[in-house]
């Protein structure tokens, strides 16, 4: 994870668009300027970044489901729960399930776990729109390769 660049997930563990599921992992860095302010003497991952982590996990699932034909943007966070602190150096596993692929929007349920214990969960809704430009699409594809999205999901089936 590179918190300053909003890279909240490191690698895909399992991706199955047909089953509408994804699992990912990420390692919270030991050092980050974010921890200097949140909080001095008690560094923990901000809850908003836990939500972002769930949103990115579900976002990759939506992207793969749509074969990168459109981009999901965060629209709504429902029922987010931060169940315990996440600290520097902690290993996280995330998962998401696509519960609705609507017209121009998508809905997922996602969660973060660590050492088998759920630390956060939320329902996330996205507005799904055409990529605003080719620069963003190319960057998303490059990141997709880095985190292990199979090439078969990069283009229309």
């Amino acid at each position, binding site marked *: 994870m590179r918190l300053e660049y909003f890279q909240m997930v490191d690698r895909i563990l399992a991706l199955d668009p047909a089953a509408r599921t994804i699992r990912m992992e990420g390692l919270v860095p030991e050092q980050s300027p974010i921890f200097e302010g949140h909080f001095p003497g008690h560094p923990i991952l901000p809850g908003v970044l836990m939500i972002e982590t769930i949103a990115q996990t579900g976002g990759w699932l939506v992207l793969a489901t749509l074969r990168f034909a459109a981009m999901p943007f965060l*629209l*709504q966070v429902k029922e987010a729960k931060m169940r315990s602190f996440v600290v520097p150096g902690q290993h996280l596993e995330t998962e998401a399930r696509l519960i*609705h*692929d*609507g*017209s*121009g*929007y998508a*809905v997922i349920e996602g969660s973060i776990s660590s050492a088998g214990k759920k630390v956060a969960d939320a329902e996330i*809704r996205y*507005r799904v729109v055409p990529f605003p430009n080719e620069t963003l699409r190319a960057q998303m594809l490059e990141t997709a390769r880095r985190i292990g999205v199979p090439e078969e999901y990069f283009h229309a089936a």
Partner: protein
Amino acid sequence: MSSTFETVAGIIADTCDIERDKITAESHAINDLGIDSLDFLDVAFAIDKAFGIKMPLEQWTQEVNDSKVSSDEYFVLGNLCANIDKLVAAKSA
């Protein structure tokens, strides 16, 4: 249609915190009930789930933006319910 309307009106009342009595088949979701685009997506999600359909919102919005149809066609609730009924019928055909 009447049961469709009852379901849709109930969804709108619950989702958008609008008094049920103010919601009629002649109400325009945006112009009369003041539902904004974010709330309308909540309504759309609930309708999709309730009826097991996928309302083609992108297509409808494009048609309205291109002035091919009036927004009344999709956003006056009586018309919206008729379109929902068509989608449900197409699904089970």
